[in-house]
């Protein structure tokens, strides 16, 4: 597949074209805190130096609330009306590797025993244009979970800044290739793979070894570490809602009146007490330490057991937003340390 050079003007022109066709165009908001659908090329934000958004862009694949179907009551019968948006095309500009890589990761659970047509349709209808990341703070650890600021995982096209006004654009997937060929008026200038320079990109240091973390988690379901973590955590679940890979949902029925309504899939989180509360009143995760253990274990043990993937992209969103400053990176380093100590003790 070819690689191209795109100027900012060409990207703006492409955006205008897409906005006038059927695409929903998605970019970082001006304040960099979230991803939003834009209505003008002036609102496009592509900045590799920017801090990761506060909330990931997952809502464009897994909306915070999504109608599964509508229902209408006719005397004693119910009519069900499909709600799936079959044809809404989307394009996402400038998502970081720690955001784009989440899509193939969660795709595994959305296509496990049941194929989630809502998620899959959105993935199928979306072009993701990733962007190298040139931001590091103490909360970042993408390299510890097998990713990097130049990882193309999850992107269809991938942008690497050449100078202030130009990007190299790598074509990553066949879907990306198809998109390029249908916009051949924009993608005109090609560039050799060897000429694309990523040497200036800062790469965060590796902070822990996920395999060792997992081995420790395999053996330490009951450990005093969980008590310590549970004590600080307020169970607000900001972490899960900001996270690119957290994908738990609740299903609810909402009435519009007594004859109609909808069934909806809404974001949910394992940090809530009622998440695991049984109808009997029993709650297997009745305390915050158990709920915090679930968060770490799901990401670094259960998902790895089941899908051979880590359910974390090292983006640091959960830490940056945590009202009590719980730092998942530090916790994983601590676990890695405990793992090393237990190996040397044996």
């Amino acid at each position, binding site marked *: 597949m070819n690689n191209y050079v795109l100027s900012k003007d060409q990207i703006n022109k492409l955006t205008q074209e897409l906005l006038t066709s059927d695409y929903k165009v998605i970019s970082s908001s001006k*304040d960099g*805190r*979230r991803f939003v659908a834009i209505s003008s090329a002036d609102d496009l934000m592509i900045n590799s130096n920017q801090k990761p958004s*506060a*909330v990931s862009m997952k809502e464009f694949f897994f909306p*915070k*609330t999504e109608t599964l179907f509508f229902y209408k009551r006719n005397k004693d019968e119910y009519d069900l009306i499909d709600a799936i948006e079959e044809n809404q095309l989307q394009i996402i500009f400038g998502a970081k590797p720690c955001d784009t890589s989440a899509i193939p990761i969660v795709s595994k659970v959305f296509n496990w025993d049941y194929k989630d047509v809502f998620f899959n349709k959105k993935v199928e209808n979306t072009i993701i244009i990733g962007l190298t990341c040139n931001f590091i*703070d*103490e909360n970042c650890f993408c390299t510890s979970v097998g990713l990097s600021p130049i990882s193309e995982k999850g992107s269809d096209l991938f942008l690497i800044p050449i100078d202030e006004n130009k990007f190299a654009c790598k074509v990553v997937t066949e879907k990306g290739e198809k998109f390029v060929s249908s916009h051949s008026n924009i993608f005109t200038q090609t560039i050799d793979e060897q000429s694309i320079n990523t040497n200036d990109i800062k790469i965060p240091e590796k902070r822990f070894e996920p395999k060792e973390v997992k081995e420790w988690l395999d053996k330490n379901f009951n450990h005093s570490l969980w008590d310590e973590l549970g*004590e*600080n955590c*307020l*169970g*607000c*679940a*900001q972490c*899960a*809602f*900001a996270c690119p890979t957290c994908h738990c949902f*609740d299903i*609810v029925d*909402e009435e519009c009146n007594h004859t109609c309504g909808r069934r*909806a899939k*809404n*974001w949910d*989180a394992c940090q*809530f007490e*009622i998440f695991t509360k049984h109808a009997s009143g029993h709650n297997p995760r009745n305390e*915050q330490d158990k709920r915090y253990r679930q968060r770490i274990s799901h990401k670094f043990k259960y998902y790895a057991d089941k899908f051979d993937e880590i359910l974390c992209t090292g983006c640091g969103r959960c830490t*940056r*937003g945590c*009202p*009590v*400053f*719980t*730092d998942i990176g*530090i916790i994983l380093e601590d676990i890695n340390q405990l793992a090393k100590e237990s190996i040397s003790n044996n």
Partner: protein
Amino acid sequence: MKQLIDISKELFESKKVAYIIGYAEDKFKRVKPFVAHSSLDAETFVFNNYSVNNLSVYLTRLPKPKDGKIGIVAKGCDIKSIIALIQENQIKRDDVIIIGVNCNSVVNQIDEQFSKENTAIKCKYCQVRTPAHYDYLVGEIKEVELPEDKNFAIMQKLDSMSAEEKWNFWEAEFEKCVKCYACRQVCPLCYCEQCIVDKSMPRWIDSSATTKGNFAWNMIRAFHLSGRCIGCNECERACPADIPLSLLNRKMGMVAMNEFNYRHGTDINQPTLIGNYNVNDKEDFIM
């Protein structure tokens, strides 16, 4: 700091407390809540301009100790919510030992350097830099430069808006809500054993992050906090969607003050505004 650590150690050594809720630094020197269980733990206590958390939220979240009291390190503003919890019969005065701290204001954006511009707006009108109520008092008052009250102009603008304009303003703000309820979880006065949004038989409030569900949640929370919010602004700080919740809470607090001359969290013996019937209360306020 030495004073704070000495008092905390003494409280452990004399077995007066089971644990003390305070602040400590993590390995990146970030100040975060920390529960000390021993005098050794207490040696890590810190207090500075980055001690933003209102720790009183932990008073109703952590298990009640079998022996001993709960110690808590608190700024003047946080002590207002401790008093509020006592006024509302959620904790007993005798069950807590309050280590009040003289506060020289706290940071607004936690990941940026503390400065006049980066000072929490709530500090602007603070009248309790030296706490009004405590068991022990530590720290020294220094002169501080106060920030601009950027929210006041927004509140005035909101007051002058038509109902439709107000609706549009809040609709755009609430549209960002992800229904994580972080606002509730960090709030020291959101202590209901079962929150109304979690009730599903019947469901009173849509759990979906739709216009209807978002309005229902944010309005019900504002109503529940009317005349109760003490203005610590933890909800606004915790909100991942950056919804300016303090505008709502501050407005409701101003109504409680102007209409009923009531400010919550100032006197442990004062009956609460909502929990008390007063024949002299104005009725013209009821629509």
